[in-house]
C-alpha cells in the first residue's frame, strides 16, 4: 500500500531560529518569557487591526532573520498565513519585507503546513533560508468570524480566545545542534458534522486523532518514541475529546500529550476553554517546544496543528465545520 500524504525528508532541514511576537493580553501566557517581542497595544501602534497584524508579522520575520545574522535579501522564500479575508496581513507583510512569497491557508494548522512546505523547498535544494509561520490578531479575526468586539454576546465555556500572536521559523539546510524536520503527514479533511462555531475544539478533535493515527501507522512509530505530542488549538474541551478518540483507537494516552491552546493562557477562566487562532500553535511551537528542544529536554516531538476550515458564510448557510490537522516530526540530535 502506498501511504498517502506522508513525507520523509532526506536531508532533515533545520529550524535555525524562530521569531515570536505577541499582543498585550498574551502577557498572561505562561510562555511569555520565551516570546521575543510584546506590544503594549492590540494594534501594535498601527492605525488598524489589520495593519497592526501585518506589522506583528514583519517584526517576527525580522527577528527570526536577525538571529541567523541575515537580512530579508538573504531569504529565499516567505511562507506565511493568517485568518483574515484573503490573508491581507500576510500579503502586506510580504510586501514590506520583500521576500519571494506564497501565502498559505490551513486555518489554524497553517503553522505546520508552512513548515512542511519550507522543509520540502529546503530538502529539494531550492532554499537556503525559508521563513515559515502563521499568526492571528484577536480583534481582526473576531470581527470577521463572529461579532463586533464590543458586542455583548455570551460565550459558552467551550469557546476559545483567538490569540494576538505571530510565530515564524527560519528553515535552513541541516545544521548540527539545531532541531531538524524529519518527516510529516499531510492531514485529510475530517468532518463529523459539528456545527457550533463556539465549540471548535470539538469539531477539530477528530481531525487531530485521525492525523495522529495516520502518522503513527504511516511512519511506523509509537507514542513512546516521542517526548511530546503537541496538538495545536483544541482547547480544554477539544483536548479531552481528542484524548478519548485516541484511546478509543487503542493509543496509550500519556503525560506526553499536550495542547498549545489548552496551555496558552494557563488556567485563567476568562479565556474559557483556552486559546485558538493561527498564532496559537505557531507561537507555542516556536517558543516553548523549540526552547525545550534546544535545551535537550525534548529529543523527538510530534507537532499536530489543527485547523477549522469554516467561514462566516459557510456557517450561516448551515454547513458543518470541516477540519484538518497536519503533523510534523522534529528531532534534536
Amino acid at each position, binding site marked *: 500500500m502506498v501511504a498517502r500524504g506522508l513525507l520523509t525528508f532526506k536531508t532533515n532541514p533545520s529550524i535555525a531560529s524562530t521569531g515570536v511576537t505577541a499582543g498585550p493580553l498574551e502577557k498572561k501566557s505562561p510562555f511569555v518569557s520565551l516570546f521575543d517581542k510584546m506590544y503594549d497595544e492590540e494594534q501594535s501602534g498601527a492605525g488598524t487591526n489589520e495593519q497592526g497584524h501585518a506589522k506583528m508579522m514583519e517584526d517576527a520575520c525580522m527577528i527570526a532573520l536577525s538571529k541567523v545574522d541575515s537580512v530579508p535579501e538573504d531569504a529565499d522564500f516567505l511562507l506565511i498565513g493568517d485568518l483574515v479575508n484573503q490573508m491581507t496581513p500576510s500579503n502586506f507583510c510580504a510586501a514590506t519585507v520583500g521576500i519571494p512569497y506564497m501565502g498559505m491557508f490551513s486555518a489554524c494548522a497553517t503553522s505546520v503546513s508552512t513548515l512542511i512546505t519550507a522543509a520540502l523547498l529546503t530538502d529539494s535544494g531550492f532554499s537556503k533560508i525559508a521563513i515559515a509561520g502563521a499568526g492571528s490578531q484577536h480583534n481582526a479575526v473576531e470581527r470577521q468570524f463572529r461579532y463586533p*468586539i464590543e458586542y*455583548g*454576546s*455570551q460565550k*459558552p465555556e467551550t469557546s476559545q480566545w483567538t490569540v494576538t500572536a505571530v510565530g515564524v521559523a527560519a528553515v535552513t539546510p541541516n545544521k548540527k545542534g539545531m532541531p531538524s524536520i524529519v518527516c510529516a503527514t499531510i492531514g485529510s479533511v475530517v468532518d*463529523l458534522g*459539528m456545527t457550533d462555531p463556539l465549540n471548535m475544539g470539538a469539531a477539530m478533535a477528530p481531525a487531530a486523532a485521525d492525523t495522529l493515527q495516520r502518522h503513527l501507522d504511516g511512519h511506523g512509530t509509537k507514542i513512546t518514541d516521542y517526548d511530546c505530542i503537541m496538538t495545536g488549538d483544541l482547547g480544554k474541551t477539544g483536548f479531552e475529546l481528542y484524548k478519548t478518540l485516541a484511546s478509543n483507537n487503542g493509543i496509550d494516552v500519556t503525560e506526553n500529550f499536550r495542547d498549545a491552546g489548552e496551555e496558552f493562557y494557563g488556567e485563567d477562566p476568562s479565556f474559557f476553554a483556552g486559546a485558538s487562532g493561527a498564532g496559537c500553535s505557531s507561537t507555542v511551537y516556536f517558543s516553548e517546544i523549540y526552547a525545550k528542544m534546544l535545551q535537550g529536554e525534548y529529543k523527538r516531538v510530534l507537532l499536530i496543528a489543527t485547523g477549522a476550515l469554516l467561514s462566516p458564510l459557510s456557517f450561516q448557510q448551515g454547513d458543518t465545520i470541516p477540519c484538518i490537522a497536519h503533523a510534523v516530526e522534529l528531532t534534536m540530535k
Partner: protein
Amino acid sequence: MNEKKYAALEKEISPKTPYLRNCIKAFLVGGTICLIGQFVALFYMTYFDFTERTSSNPTVSTMIFFAMLLTGFGFYKKIGQIGGAGGSVPITGFSNAVVSAAIEHKSEGYVLGVGGNMFKLAGSVILFGVFSAFVVALIKTILVKLGVVSW
C-alpha cells in the same frame, strides 16, 4: 466513529450548559436593567410633563444613551457575558448591537463603514418587527372591517 456516535461523545465530554445559573443571571441582570428603566421613567414623570404612558419614549432613549456609553467604554460586553439574554433582550442590548457595529467599522470610514454596517446586527430586529407589525395590523384591520372583532 460516525457522526451520531461522535455527537453523543461530544455531548458527554463538553461542559454542560448551566441552564439554571444562566437563567438566574439573566433574570437578575435583565430585571435590574428594567428597574433602572423604571427609575428613569419616574424621573421623567416627576420633573417633566410626562404621564405613565408617554414616559416610555424618553425612557427608551435614555437607556439607549446609557448603553452607548457602557459599550464605548468596554463594559457592555461584560454585562452581556454575565447576563446573557439579560443583557441582550432589553433595549440596551439593541443599542449595544448598533453601537458596537458602528465603532467596529469606523476603520472603513463613516459612509461605507459606520453607515453601511451600523445595522448589521440590529437590522434583522427592525425587519421582523416591522413586518410582523404589518401582518398583525393588517389581519386586525380586516377582522374589524368584517365585524369579527372591534378595536
